């Protein structure tokens, strides 16, 4: 049932993308040099199918899209779908790395802040989270480049050759979510540490380290894990700008370039696929909840 809703969303998304692209009116104005003759505009318009009414255009687009034909890129004369799919793995990889980074950081800082509540570590963490939330992700990325790549020269800032190329972009992409996730983990952990069942475990002599990292953590991680899908979707959203900064060969950067070039087939294909993943990861949220909390598993 949820899947159905998701499909509706994707279809709706495609409509929105379509409309947004066409809002300006005549595309050919931007594609042809300014001194082109009106007839050339006409020819191009007909070639690209832009002379038909919008509804017809959309239907043609949709029917082709379902079959996997997103048309050819205006710039590269290649199927738009192929362009997008080639670059999709790079984006997914980056998003996954970013998610791993943010979750690990959030768990580490969140748990320790809760356990040592009120200590300098906790206060330091709070201030850091506050600052982190105020800093725009892309600026952080630029600062990282400035500091690590330019001044210190130890980490690469462009491209995707080796695993060290992942470090700066992944941290920057994950940056957006770290503050919120840390706060969530800390707050959940504080609640759990106060609970009766942790007291029971303490009373039977479970050592402190295991108490925190095995027993309490599993309970505190529940809200975070259920939101993983949402955070992954957020990473996908942030990929547009982060990939542009780090020259990362992923869908995000491709779409941004395509938008500038008014290369609509690529734009449509790229954003639509990102939307599909977006919707998909939000759906995944419900499924993961059942895995973590055994009570829900059986209620279905």
């Amino acid at each position, binding site marked *: 049932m949820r899947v159905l809703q998701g499909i509706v969303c994707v279809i709706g998304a495609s409509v929105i993308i379509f409309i947004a692209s066409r809002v300006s009116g005549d595309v050919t104005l931007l594609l042809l040099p300014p001194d082109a003759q009106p007839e050339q505009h006409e020819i191009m318009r007909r070639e690209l199918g832009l002379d038909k009414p919008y509804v017809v255009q959309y239907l043609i687009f949709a029917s082709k899209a379902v079959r996997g034909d997103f048309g050819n890129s205006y710039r590269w004369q290649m199927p738009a779908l192929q362009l997008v799919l080639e670059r999709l793995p790079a984006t997914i990889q980056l998003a996954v790395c970013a998610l791993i980074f943010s979750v690990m950081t959030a768990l580490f800082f969140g748990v320790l802040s809760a356990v040592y509540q009120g200590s300098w570590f906790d206060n330091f963490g709070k201030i850091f989270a506050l600052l982190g939330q105020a800093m725009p992700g892309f600026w952080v990325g630029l600062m990282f480049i400035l500091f690590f790549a330019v001044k210190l020269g130890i980490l690469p800032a462009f491209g995707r050759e080796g695993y060290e190329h992942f470090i700066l972009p992944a941290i920057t992409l994950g940056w957006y979510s770290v503050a919120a996730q840390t706060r969530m983990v800390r707050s959940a952990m504080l609640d759990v540490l106060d609970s009766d069942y942790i*007291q*029971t475990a303490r*009373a*039977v*002599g*479970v050592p402190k380290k295991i108490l925190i990292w095995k*027993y309490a953590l*599993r309970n505190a991680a529940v809200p975070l894990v259920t939101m993983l899908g949402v955070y992954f979707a957020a990473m996908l959203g942030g990929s547009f700008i982060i990939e542009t900064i780090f020259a990362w060969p992923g869908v995000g950067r491709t779409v941004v370039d395509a938008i500038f070039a008014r290369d609509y087939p690529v734009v449509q294909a790229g954003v639509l696929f990102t939307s599909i993943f977006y919707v998909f990861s939000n759906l995944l949220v419900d499924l993961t909840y059942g895995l973590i909390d055994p*009570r829900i598993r059986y209620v279905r």
Partner: protein
Amino acid sequence: MAVREKIPLLSVENLKTYLFLRRGVVKAVDGVSFQVQERETLGIVGESGSGKSMTCLSILRLIPEPAGRIVEGKIILDGTDILQVDEQEMASQVRGRKISMISQDPLTSLNPVFSIGDQVGGPFRYHGLKKDRKGIREAVVDVLRRVRIPSPAQRLKDYPYQFSGGMRQRVVAAMAIACGPRLLIADEPTSALDVTIQIQMLQLLEEIQQETNVGLILITHDLGVAAYICQRIAVMYAGRIVEFGDVRTIYKKPSHPYTQALLNSVPRLGEKKKRLFNIEGQPPDLLNPPIGCAFWPRCDRRRDICQQEYPPTIPIDREGYASCWLLT
């Protein structure tokens, strides 16, 4: 019967546990002393806020920090003062191993995301009693059987929500007795249970005591429960023991006005009374406890001196005592 002078299993001497809050200091436990023998059941009776739970948390050193602190006293278990032991040794040697606790609310005492096999296996694993998975599994099944969980081997992978309240309480009991403790503390083990299940729980505790000679401290506000299973009773009020003694003596001839009031509050079958007896007044404010006897605002036989000075401890019979000016 000759009185045997045994070395007590547990000896609590002048225990004082205070809570240092922003608003002031709460003297939750203010000079409590008692002893528990092997195979004996001591009941601690009182209202909420009397300090009974805090006393037992203090024995296990589980009081909430940093606000709470044991400021004075000795707790001697089998000859060793466990207040001097460091935290790590406390966790690995004492808690769960020599002293165990069954807490009050079975619905929240078990971790919802771990199976009961995992949780009951915890004590075995962390006290090093069993090393391999098979050994732990067998031990868990065995202890679950002892607490009368049906078909324990099949239920190891089940989660707490799949058990009823009474069963969950038994699982908690299993965790407590897993490593064969010398002292068991049961904090209101029956308060959250149905009346019919309560008896079963008490019987279970008795069986465990007979099997293992464990000393039992039972905390309760229910006098009927206390009468059923305890040999001696300590009545607590505002952080102190106001009366102590053999269960029969206390029920037949209570000496302290508070104890008398408690007993009068329990309606008895066959008695015709127009109104239920109620103890007047409110429980004491522990931030600003009254000077003198803490019970004097609610006592119907109070004298002036009760307000000025705390009453001395007057011995009663062989082992009992009470703190009241009326007895002098």
